[in-house]
């Protein structure tokens, strides 16, 4: 599935968060959004999941404007794992079953175990209280829960920011596996530039709500303009 933005701007309470963003997320690719805090990256992901509507401009999924797609259908196609990985009260199984319950369907224990295995977790966690999980486990369950909808596009909002080094490398492996073995288009945010360079097919650099540059990860290793250079060197935070 191709996700495209045409002149997308977003303003809230008289503050402009995104300014005239135009670009395309290619099918089956991993695109990483990088940029200083407050650049509008999370807002961009929320627009892609249709949790927000742009003030102006249009988003398209496979050429069809978002406004013509039923929001709940759209959100199942373009799934999102939120930064805080919120869990509903109950077990890991209850959380994995949630997307199906929302669609008045059920998820068998066997299927739930399959989704847990897909994110590298043991099926013994299935009956554990979800809110008792470690940070890394929560993020994995959050991703697994999104996979239950069989989304073709996965939006991941800083899912490694609060994790230790081991958990980070496991999540990186998971992202690669989801993309290469399951063909999921991945759009994710990270503050770790090494991660962005290592995992991405494409990188979007955002500063102050503007899309400064897009391209292969080499735009981070060999910056072509001054703003990117300043960001890479840590002058912009």
């Amino acid at each position, binding site marked *: 599935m191709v996700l495209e933005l045409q002149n997308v701007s977003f303003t809230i309470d008289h503050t402009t968060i995104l300014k005239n963003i135009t670009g395309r997320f290619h099918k089956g690719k991993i695109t990483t959004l990088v940029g200083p805090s407050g650049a509008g990256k999370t807002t961009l992901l929320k627009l892609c999941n*249709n949790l927000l509507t742009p003030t102006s401009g249009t988003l398209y999924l496979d050429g069809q404007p978002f406004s013509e797609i039923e*929001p709940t259908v759209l959100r199942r196609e373009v799934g999102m794992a939120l930064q805080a990985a*919120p869990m509903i009260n109950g077990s890991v199984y209850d959380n994995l079953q949630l*997307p199906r319950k*929302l669609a008045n369907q059920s998820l068998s224990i066997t299927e739930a175990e399959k989704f847990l295995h897909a994110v590298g977790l043991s099926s013994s966690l299935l009956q554990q209280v979800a809110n008792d999980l470690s940070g890394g486990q929560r993020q994995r369950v959050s991703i697994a829960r999104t996979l239950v909808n069989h989304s073709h596009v996965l939006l991941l909002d800083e899912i490694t920011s609060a994790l230790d080094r081991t958990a980070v490398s496991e999540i990186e492996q998971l992202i690669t596996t989801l993309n290469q073995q399951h063909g999921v288009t991945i759009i994710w945010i990270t503050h770790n530039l090494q991660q962005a360079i290592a995992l991405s097919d494409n990188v979007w650099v955002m500063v102050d709500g503007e899309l400064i540059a897009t391209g292969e990860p080499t735009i981070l290793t060999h910056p072509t303009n001054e703003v990117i250079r300043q960001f890479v060197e840590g002058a912009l935070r």
Partner: protein
Amino acid sequence: MSYLSLSLTLFFVLIPLVLSKTLNLGLERDVVIATVRAIIQLLAVGYILTFVFDGDHPAYMLIMILIMITTATLNARKKGKHIKGITWKLVATITTVEVVTQGILLGFHIVPATAQYIIPISGMMIGNAMVLSILFLNRFDAEVQAHKDEVELILSLGGSPKQAIHHQLMQAIKASMIPTIESQKTIGLVQLPGMMSGQIIGGADPMQAVQFQILIIFALLTNATISSLMLGFLSYPALFNERKQLLNV
């Protein structure tokens, strides 16, 4: 009660005034305003009720009830300013409570269809519906603010607004009903209800007063259920737009 006896009750106003002044609580002005307002409002209501009871005309009763509903709505809507259309939602809720309650009481001839019964019972029902509405609106707002992440999570997974807000809505409905249910559990043991006390002081047979009080507490239970549920289900859609997105409330 003579006017002299009534004026002596001002000692009950003097005590908080003196204590507030002594302890620098700064409540003197509020106490004076509250006292003056209470005297004026109750005297006015006394004269109006005398007029309505003497006339005993349906139009007078209807006007009284409309004034009660309007005042209750204007008071409660302050707590739901962020909910679009809150005024008519409150009017619909409070009016339904009044219609259902009076419909049962008058339809089954439980009380006579006279102003002497209809007006005081309406006052209790509409007043309780107003308090329930305020409790619900306060709690609902707090629940949504505290659990925005969960609401967004369910929306992001393809849930409908109703599914996304269900938990917060139920919590607010339950929380607003708890005071009514809890007060019924201890009624007569901890406190004698105001209406029953008033009747007994006024010389009514205590068993007669108890019978009317039972009628009122049962009616209040229905009142609480209808108020919370109806206002809840009328209010939650206003928190979302047509694209099923949680509005910035």
